């Protein structure tokens, strides 16, 4: 049962990731990317990390994909024929992806993975996560919020109408 669910998620993840870089229409590509991101959220749920999965959907699908689609719409004339995407750098990209695959395979082969079922690990609950973020990981956490604030101010400055 659980294996079946995993394979469904895995196949949809790979298929839509592949489609999102190969279909011609940019809007179709965005839809495929949405399915990819939803599948990634599915992987998180499957691994027993619902918090990360939920945040994945909220941020990537609800926020970033909406912005992507807005950007696609606003860079062309509204109702215009679709923008085509192209793969100009097919061979360098393929070589790079191949190199990453080889590296991953080497690491996977080098380790002996135990295939017996382990008792489910009790993941950190939300409270622990919050406490950790505000104690041990306070500096990176605050740094990210500073970065986001800078981006926010920057967006307003760029978007402001010039006098």
């Amino acid at each position, binding site marked *: *049962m659980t294996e079946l669910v995993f394979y469904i998620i895995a196949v949809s993840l790979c298929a839509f990731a592949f489609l999102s870089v190969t279909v011609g*229409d940019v*809007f*179709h590509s965005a*839809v495929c990317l*949405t399915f990819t991101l*939803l599948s990634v959220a599915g992987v998180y749920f499957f691994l027993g990390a*619902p*918090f990360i999965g*939920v*945040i994945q*959907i*909220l941020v990537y*699908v*609800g*926020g970033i*994909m*909406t912005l992507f*689609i*807005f950007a696609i*719409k606003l860079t062309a004339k*509204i*109702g215009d024929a*679709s923008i085509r995407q192209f793969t100009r750098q097919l061979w360098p990209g393929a070589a790079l992806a191949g190199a990453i695959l080889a590296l991953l395979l080497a690491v996977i082969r080098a380790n002996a993975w135990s295939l017996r079922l382990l008792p489910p690990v009790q993941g950190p*609950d*939300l409270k622990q996560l919050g406490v950790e973020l505000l104690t041990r990981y306070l500096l990176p956490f605050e740094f990210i919020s500073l970065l986001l604030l800078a981006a926010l101010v920057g967006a307003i400055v760029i978007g402001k109408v010039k006098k």
Partner: protein
Amino acid sequence: MKPFLMEIIWLVLKGIMALTFVAVSAMFLIWFERKVSARVQNRMGPMITGFHGALQSVADTVKLLLKENIVPTGADFVVWWLAPFFVAVPAIMVFVCMPFGPNAIVCDLNVGILFMCSVTSVSVLGIFMAGWGSSNKYSLLGGMRSAAQIISYEVPLLLSVLVVVMQAGTLSMQGIVHAQETGWFFLKPNLLLAFIIYIIAATAEVNRVPFDIPEAESELVAGYHTEYSGMKFAMFFVAEYTNFFIIAAIASTLFLGGWLGPVAPSPVWFLLKAYGIIFILMWVRWTLPRLRMDQMMSFAWKALTPLALLNVLVTGWLLVIKG
């Protein structure tokens, strides 16, 4: 029987129960809306089919089932075809964490309220896909407006939910209900403000008057679902009323104590509170005129969002002072 098979049957049964509730609730709400609007406008509303038109929605459903599914010639078929699912499926998925009673919940995730908010945020893509895939300028404008509106009002909506989470100290829906055993949340002033912000923002999220500019019928025909007919249109319609029920149910859980209540069984209290909020929102819909696009956006960003942020700050201070 094998446990594996039992598990699958139980899952399918739960799914059927959720789907049945979604369909029946939407049909009831459509009839109810027609009756409320009729009362507001001093009419009778549907009266022919069944007692006071009670079977009107059933007749309408049969009509929609039998209608031809027309594909517009210029439509981007795949996107056009997928869009209703993107709107309807999240609406049904939300019921996973809906607490109808102390034990009547499909799965009490420990991130319940966050799960609901994130799943509902997917439907904005469906609305946009419907607008884009139809190759119709009215649809596209409706989709654009809707997307702009939903992402703007999502901010005050989530901030007012955050106030509840701070007060309850948990994200689980059942945990939030249990936190209100000593007193419903809307009785506290800062949470009353959050309740009001939530209701306003949620009305905008489901595109209802006074925030219905995505489907403003006098300018945009029917907005993003102009080009849909038959069951495709029915899916949008059911999703719209299901989302309407969802925001009322979430509001009753977060602020009005959910299923808590004396004497009567808990699901009765839950549904009573949810339908009470629905009635008030219908009353608003048939009373107020529609806002303009720029009024609506400036209200979201210049009034609601700062107010909601301030409310988070005040709640933080109150919690610190009380220790």
